[in-house]
C-alpha cells in the first residue's frame, strides 16, 4: 500500500473546507410563488364572473387558469427534481475526493501547489506548442474562494512568448491572463460547481492545447507581428496599412496617400507627378501625349504636360513670328511691286 502524501493531505483538507463554504449545503428551497399567485388571481376572477352570471368570461378565464395551473405543476416538478438531484449529488466533494483529485492532478501536470494565504490552487502545464509555435508552460491559477463567480481563474504564461503586436496576448485565446473558454465554458462551470477540480484543470489544459484560428486574439500566422514590406519593422494591428493595389502590409510611415483618390499605396505602387511632385497611384497618373512622362490630371492640359504645353506655345509663337516675318517680307516685296 502506498504511503499517503502528507503535503497533498494537508492541501486536500484545506480545499475540502473551502469548497464546503463555496458550495454551500445545497438545501435552500425556492417556492414557485409567482405561478401560485397567478393561479390564485385567476381562480378569484372565475368566481367573480360566475357570481355575476358572466359565463363566457368565466369560461375564457378558466382556460387561462388551466395554463397557469400547468405552469405551477411544472415549476413544482422542477423544484422537486432539483431537490432530488442535490440529495443525490454525485459530486458533493468529500475530503477523500479532494485528496484523489490532487493526486491525479499531480500525476497529470508538471506541478501543483496550494497557497493557503491567497487560497489559490496553482497547476503548471507542460510547454504548450500550437502549430510549431512554442508558447511555453502555463500556470492555471484557481482562486478557490471565488468558485461560483464568473471565471475564478487566471492562466499565466510562465515563460511568455507573447504576440509581437500585443504583449498581453500570451496565447491565441489568452489575454491579460484571462482565458476565453469558448466551447469549454459550460463544462468548466459545471466542473467547478460540482467541485471536480481535476476535470476543471484538464478542460483548461485541453483548451490551451487547441488552436481555433477563426476566433483568436492574435492568429498564429501573425504571432510575431506583421512586417512592413518596405522597411521591415513590426507593425501593431492598429498601425497597419495595406497597399490598395498589391495588398502588402505597410507601416504608416511607408504608406503613401494618393493625392488623387486618397487611397493608401506602397512605394512601388506610387509615382510622383513630374510637375507638382505630389504622390499619386498609377491609376491617377496619365502620360503626356508628347514627352510620355507621367503627370496628375490637374497638371495636364489637353493631355499635355506643362513643359510640353509651354514648348508647344513657344514653338507656335516662334512659327507665327517667322510667318509674320515672311509675310512682312513678302508684303514688302508686294509693296515694292505695287508702288
Amino acid at each position, binding site marked *: 500500500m502506498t504511503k499517503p502524501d502528507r503535503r497533498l493531505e494537508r492541501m486536500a483538507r484545506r480545499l475540502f473546507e473551502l469548497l464546503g463554504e463555496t458550495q454551500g449545503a445545497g438545501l435552500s428551497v425556492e417556492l414557485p410563488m409567482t405561478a401560485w399567485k397567478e393561479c390564485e388571481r385567476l381562480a378569484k376572477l372565475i368566481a367573480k364572473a360566475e357570481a355575476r352570471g358572466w359565463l363566457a368570461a368565466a369560461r375564457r378565464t378558466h382556460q387561462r387558469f388551466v395554463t397557469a395551473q400547468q405552469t405551477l405543476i411544472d415549476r413544482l416538478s422542477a423544484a422537486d427534481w432539483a431537490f432530488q438531484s442535490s440529495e*443525490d449529488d*454525485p*459530486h458533493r466533494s468529500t475530503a477523500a475526493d479532494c485528496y*484523489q*483529485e490532487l*493526486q*491525479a492532478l499531480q*500525476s497529470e501536470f508538471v506541478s501543483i501547489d496550494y497557497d493557503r494565504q491567497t487560497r489559490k490552487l496553482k497547476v503548471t502545464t507542460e510547454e504548450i506548442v500550437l502549430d510549431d509555435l512554442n508558447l511555453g508552460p502555463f500556470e492555471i491559477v484557481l482562486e478557490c474562494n471565488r468558485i461560483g463567480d464568473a471565471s475564478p481563474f487566471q492562466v499565466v504564461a510562465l515563460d511568455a512568448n507573447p504576440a509581437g503586436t500585443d504583449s498581453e496576448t500570451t496565447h*491565441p*485565446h*489568452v*489575454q491579460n491572463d484571462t*482565458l*476565453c*473558454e*469558448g*466551447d*469549454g465554458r*459550460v*463544462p*468548466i*462551470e*459545471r*466542473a467547478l460547481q*460540482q467541485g*471536480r477540480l*481535476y*476535470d476543471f484543470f*484538464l*478542460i483548461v489544459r*485541453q*483548451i*490551451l*492545447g*487547441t488552436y*481555433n484560428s477563426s*476566433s*483568436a*486574439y492574435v492568429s498564429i500566422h501573425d504571432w510575431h507581428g506583421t512586417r512592413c514590406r518596405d522597411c521591415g519593422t513590426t507593425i501593431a494591428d492598429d498601425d497597419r496599412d495595406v497597399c490598395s493595389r498589391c495588398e502588402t502590409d505597410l507601416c504608416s510611415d511607408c504608406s503613401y496617400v494618393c493625392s488623387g483618390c486618397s487611397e493608401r499605396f506602397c512605394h512601388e505602387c506610387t509615382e510622383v507627378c513630374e510637375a507638382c511632385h505630389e504622390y499619386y497611384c498609377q491609376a491617377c497618373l496619365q502620360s503626356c501625349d508628347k514627352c510620355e512622362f507621367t503627370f496628375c490630371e490637374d497638371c495636364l492640359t489637353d493631355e499635355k504636360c506643362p513643359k510640353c504645353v509651354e514648348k508647344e506655345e513657344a514653338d507656335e509663337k516662334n512659327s507665327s513670328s517667322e510667318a509674320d516675318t515672311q509675310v512682312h517680307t513678302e508684303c514688302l516685296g508686294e509693296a515694292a511691286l505695287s508702288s
Partner: protein
Amino acid sequence: MRVLMINNDGAGFADYIDVEPGTTVEQLFSQQVKSGKAVDYLIRVNRLPTHREQVLQESDRISITARKIEGAR
C-alpha cells in the same frame, strides 16, 4: 451495476448510470458519445489513464474529455 459517468463535452453531463457487468471502456464510450472517436478523447477511469478493453467495476468514475476544445476571444 452503477458507475459515475462524466462527459466534459457540451453541457458537461455528470451522473450515476447503470451499466451491464463486464462493460468495457470502449463499449461505454460508444454508448455515451454517439458521434465521436475514442482516440479524440482523454478517457480516465478513477482519474487515471486507461485502455479501451478495461472492464468497468462497480462505482468506477469514468470521465471523457475532448482532446481538442476550442477557445475563443
